[in-house]
């Protein structure tokens, strides 16, 4: 190892340590910002020291690439709406996957015939895996982005030959893998496999419905890390291996949390499109009580403790700022206000927390489902805003319900429940909600933001 190589590797170790400490600091909201800075510093020194490598000669190309990508990145980061974070993360997952795929391709295309004949099976295997995972991540993320941003229909695309198509893809890719590793000088096998992987990413994601997108984003996040790790193995670069795996682990843990919160296995989510959709319409009988907004004000005015349960509908109605205003009025009225957030509320893990943080709600008041459920009886009023399935008692009571067994925020055990909703229809997953028929539930129908603003007006005119 010459002195330059040694320096580069030592700096990589420092960068890895910075990434690790950065992630550690991300464990608490107070230190998270510092953690992100540390991690960025690690990235910066890793990039700068790589440029020292004497092998690198195409500086003007590199500069052009960094400038083009960097400025687009700045633009996206500064302008993205917090409601649109899931789309953006999805898109970035895709770019990460595509970059790894291109690295594998570029590495391979730079080889001479002799290098191809003498390369090790380990290297060809890892290059193949890099291109494979990178390609699936790329097209899968683009489809997820399209579904989340409304460019494509968010419905699961299911048709008869889907299972067959997927199996053909997987068999084809396996066969091509054997061919390529056995005869690497026939680079054509690699290209065909890459095309198949790109196409597989599309089919696999198309067949998953919009409600399951949080799982898909988390999983693709994991893939983008694994692709980077595989690229690191292929080109023997330790920093890529370590950091790629940190990301891979992060995505996998989030995937697991999402699946557990929906009481489904990962396989069930990924293959849901392959099953025949069941249309079991369980009729819930009873009467829905609609409460005029002014009456709701009187109840809130007398309440000692209020729990707010937000869902994606809150983001759609952009009601978070009005909610924060109402929270202040309630607190001035000596009422305790908390928020309860279900792990799958919103379109990505932690989405609601970011939206509420943007509206200046202190993070101490955002409680997790497991913190709230044991003593939910003590709340005078629970306000459900734009959430439906995550508060559906059918998950506990109705054995035949599609969501039976899913952990939910048990709002029906509180003294009274207000459901702010546009109409009394079923939710995103199309499941009837018996909560609406409970004795202690009242519906406040209409646009959530307008409803809250009306209550705010009542408070101030008092």
């Amino acid at each position, binding site marked *: 190892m010459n002195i330059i190589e040694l320096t580069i590797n030592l700096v990589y170790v420092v960068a890895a340590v910075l990434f*690790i400490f950065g*992630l550690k600091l*991300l464990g608490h*909201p107070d230190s998270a910002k510092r953690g992100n800075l540390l*991690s*960025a510093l690690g990235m910066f020194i890793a990039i700068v020291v790589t440029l020292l490598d004497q*092998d*690198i*000669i*195409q500086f003007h190309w*590199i500069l052009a*690439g*960094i400038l*083009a*990508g*960097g400025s687009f*990145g700045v633009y996206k*980061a*500064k302008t993205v709406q917090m409601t649109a*974070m899931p789309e*953006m*993360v999805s898109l*970035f*997952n895709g*770019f*990460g996957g595509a*970059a*790894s795929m291109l*690295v594998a391709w*570029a*590495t391979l*295309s730079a080889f001479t015939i002799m290098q191809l004949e003498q390369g090790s099976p380990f290297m060809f295997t890892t290059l193949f895996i890099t291109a494979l995972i990178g390609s699936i991540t790329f097209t899968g993320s683009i489809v997820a982005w399209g579904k989340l941003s409304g460019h494509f229909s968010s419905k699961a695309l299911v048709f008869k030959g889907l299972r067959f198509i997927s199996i053909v893809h997987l068999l084809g890719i396996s066969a091509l893998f054997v061919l390529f590793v056995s005869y690497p000088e026939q680079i054509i096998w690699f290209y065909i496999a890459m095309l198949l992987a790109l196409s597989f990413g599309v089919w696999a994601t198309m067949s998953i419905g919009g409600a399951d997108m949080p799982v898909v984003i988390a999983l693709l*996040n994991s893939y983008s*890390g694994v*692709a*980077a*790790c595989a690229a690191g193995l292929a*080109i*023997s670069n*330790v920093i*890529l*291996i370590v950091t790629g*795996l*940190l990301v*891979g*682990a*992060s995505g996998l*843990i*989030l995937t697991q949390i999402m699946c557990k919160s929906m009481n489904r296995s990962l396989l069930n989510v990924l293959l849901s499109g392959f099953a025949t959709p069941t249309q079991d319409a369980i009729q819930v009988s009873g009467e829905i009580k609609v409460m005029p907004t002014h009456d709701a004000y009187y109840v809130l005015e007398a309440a000692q403790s209020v729990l707010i349960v937000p869902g994606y509908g809150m983001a759609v109605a952009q009601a978070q700022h009005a909610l924060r205003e109402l929270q202040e009025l309630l607190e001035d009225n000596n009422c305790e206000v908390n928020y309860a*957030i279900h792990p799958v509320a919103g379109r*990505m*893990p*932690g989405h609601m927390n*970011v939206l509420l*943080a943007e509206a*200046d709600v*202190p993070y*101490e*008041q955002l409680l*997790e489902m497991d913190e709230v459920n044991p003593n939910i009886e003590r709340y005078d009023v629970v306000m459900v805003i734009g959430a439906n399935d995550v508060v559906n008692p059918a998950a506990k009571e109705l054995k035949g319900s599609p969501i039976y067994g899913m952990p939910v925020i048990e709002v029906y055990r509180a003294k009274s429940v207000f459901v702010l909703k546009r109409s009394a229809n079923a939710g995103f997953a199309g499941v009837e909600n018996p909560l609406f028929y409970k004795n202690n539930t009242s519906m406040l129908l209409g646009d959530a933001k307008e409803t809250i603003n009306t209550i705010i007006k009542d408070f101030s005119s008092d």
Partner: protein
Amino acid sequence: MDNIYLLIIVIFAALLGFELIKKVPATLHTPLMSGSNAISGITLVGALASSGTENELLSIVLGTLAVALASINVVGGYLVTDRMLSMFKKKQR
């Protein structure tokens, strides 16, 4: 470098990753995802190497494209994470 040596690194890095990420609270899961987006831009390091080593046109084009895409992740990912984390505040009363 020895492949076994690389695989040992893989195992340790994976275990370390699981331990670290498990401790991140649910409230920070979105910044965690955008932050790990940025970190996965480490592919940039691989892209830099592959865009610089050869003079062949195809690998220059591919490498430059990879550099551009990874730069989007690095720059965009860190900036948007910073923007989000600046919003998380303690109660002030």
